């Protein structure tokens, strides 16, 4: 019951947000093209552009910037840690992200010129002037190098990974030191580990097979949860609301499901027992489609929830600055506060749902049907 309600909620949010985002993007893209055309050769392009924007547009730009993965870790105005940029474009190009802030924002490396698009924050190959062309839909048409940079998101993944490793290996060690009793900061996470084992893995996968999936389920739960929580800090990271991340996570679930699946799983996909033979090929088609839709839904659900959460939260925080009076600002603040609390719940909930559904798919993959005719 709760799950269904959540699904409906997710779909509604997804639709409303995607409309909003599409609109926003359209306007933004138009704006980008015009500003590029008019101020392309201005040396202080960024600052100049911002001065001409209204407060509302500034907030919009800030939100957009926040949601994007960036080269360099922007803490606050004027404070930014540079991160290494690694490009593969007919050869390796490595330089610091701080170079994008020098001169007109164009970096020359091994005879090639690169600039960051303001549309999606990706690096494109340009000429010496840093001109980025757009097609009629507002998408960049320049050649795009393969970007292996340690971006803000990659950096945050590393930090989260390190944190998880220290936390959980510490917890693991504390057991042997204290005679089977957890100690240290990790002990607060022990109930969650037990919860994932007893209420997610065992009921969905079954007593017989759950053990081999436990490492994945635990890792993915804490990984998503921690990154969701980092997303709520003023650090301004949006890792789990990035489509590349959620695609990667869902793909891993899909691969594990596919490669650990037992005979019964494939039999139920390609030749469903207990169904008239004529129907079986059609069912196979639908089932096969279903196996692909499942990870796709995982991808979109996590992406949309986190993305939408960030957009709404930041928009309401933005309202505080737009109202500029006690009543409006105060109300916006209260709303933002309430929403932050909700997002705290959503952070755990989305991690739970991703883990739960992964476990469900694994369970289907290893399920053994003893009474074939009962279907």
């Amino acid at each position, binding site marked *: 019951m709760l799950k269904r309600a959540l699904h409906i909620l997710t779909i509604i949010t997804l639709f409303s947000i995607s409309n909003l*985002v*599409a609109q926003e*993007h359209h306007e933004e893209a138009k704006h980008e093209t015009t500003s590029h055309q008019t101020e392309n050769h201005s040396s202080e392009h960024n600052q100049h552009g911002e001065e001409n924007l209204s407060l509302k547009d500034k907030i919009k730009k800030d939100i957009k910037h926040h949601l*994007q*993965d960036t080269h360099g870790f922007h803490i606050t105005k004027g404070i930014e840690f540079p991160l290494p940029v*690694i490009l593969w474009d007919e050869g390796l190009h490595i330089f610091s992200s701080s170079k994008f802030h020098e001169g007109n924002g164009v970096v020359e490396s091994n005879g090639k010129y690169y600039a960051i698009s303001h*549309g*999606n924050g*990706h690096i494109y190959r340009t000429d010496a002037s840093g001109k980025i062309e757009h097609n009629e*839909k507002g*998408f*960049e048409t320049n050649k795009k190098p*393969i*970007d*292996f*940079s*340690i*971006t803000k*998101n*990659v950096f945050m*993944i*590393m930090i989260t*990974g390190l944190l*998880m*490793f220290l936390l*959980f*290996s510490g*917890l*693991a*060690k504390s*057991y*042997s030191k204290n005679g*089977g*009793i957890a100690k240290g900061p990790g002990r607060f996470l*022990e109930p969650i*580990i*037990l919860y994932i*084992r007893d209420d997610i893995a065992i009921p969905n996968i079954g007593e017989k097979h759950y*053990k081999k999936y*436990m*490492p*994945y389920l*635990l*890792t993915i739960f804490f*990984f998503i949860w921690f990154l969701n929580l980092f997303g709520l800090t003023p650090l301004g990271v949006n890792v789990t609301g*990035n*489509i*590349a*991340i959620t*695609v*990667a*996570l869902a*793909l*891993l679930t899909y691969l594990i499901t596919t490669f650990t699946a037992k005979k019964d799983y494939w039999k139920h996909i390609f030749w469903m027992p207990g169904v008239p033979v004529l129907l079986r090929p059609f069912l196979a088609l639908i089932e096969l489609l279903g196996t692909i839709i499942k990870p796709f839904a995982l991808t979109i659900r996590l992406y949309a929830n986190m993305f939408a959460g960030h957009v709404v939260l930041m928009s309401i925080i933005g309202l505080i600055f737009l109202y500029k009076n006690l009543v409006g600002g105060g109300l916006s603040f209260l709303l933002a506060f309430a929403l932050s609390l909700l997002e705290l719940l959503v952070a755990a909930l989305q991690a739970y749902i991703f883990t739960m559904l992964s476990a469900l798919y694994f369970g289907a993959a290893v399920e053994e049907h003893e009474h074939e005719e009962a279907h």
Partner: protein
Amino acid sequence: MDKLLNEFSVGLFFWQILLFVGLLLLLRKFAWKPILDAVNEREDNIKNALEGAERAKQEMLNLQADNEKILKEARAERDALLKDAREMKDNIINQAKEEAQIQANKLMEQTKVAIQNEKAKAISDMKKQMGELSVAIAEKVVKKELSDKEKQLQLVDQLLNEVTLN
């Protein structure tokens, strides 16, 4: 969809897969396996301890029942022993009595025989002495009577008669 594809970063995808799989493998070896093992072991220990306590309780109950039984048996044995002892005592006393009776009877018998013997001996002694005495008397009588012939004959006849009568 187009926007999502436009925003999709191959590099970020690559790093995510690489870092996540690395993290998964590291955590599996250094965290999840020891943690789950430790937790399982602890749960097994708790389960075993509870079972052990239950077993100990059962054993104690059994032991109590055993004690009761042993006590009962001991009591019964004691009673049986006492009964046996009493019987044995009675037997011994009875036997002793019988033995004493037999001994007494035997003694009595012997005494009787001895008395008989002594009596017989005394009688024969007496007879002998009486004979000697009679002879002596007879001698004296005879010495005195022999002066009278008739009286002598009369006496012999009388004596003879007496002897055959005896």
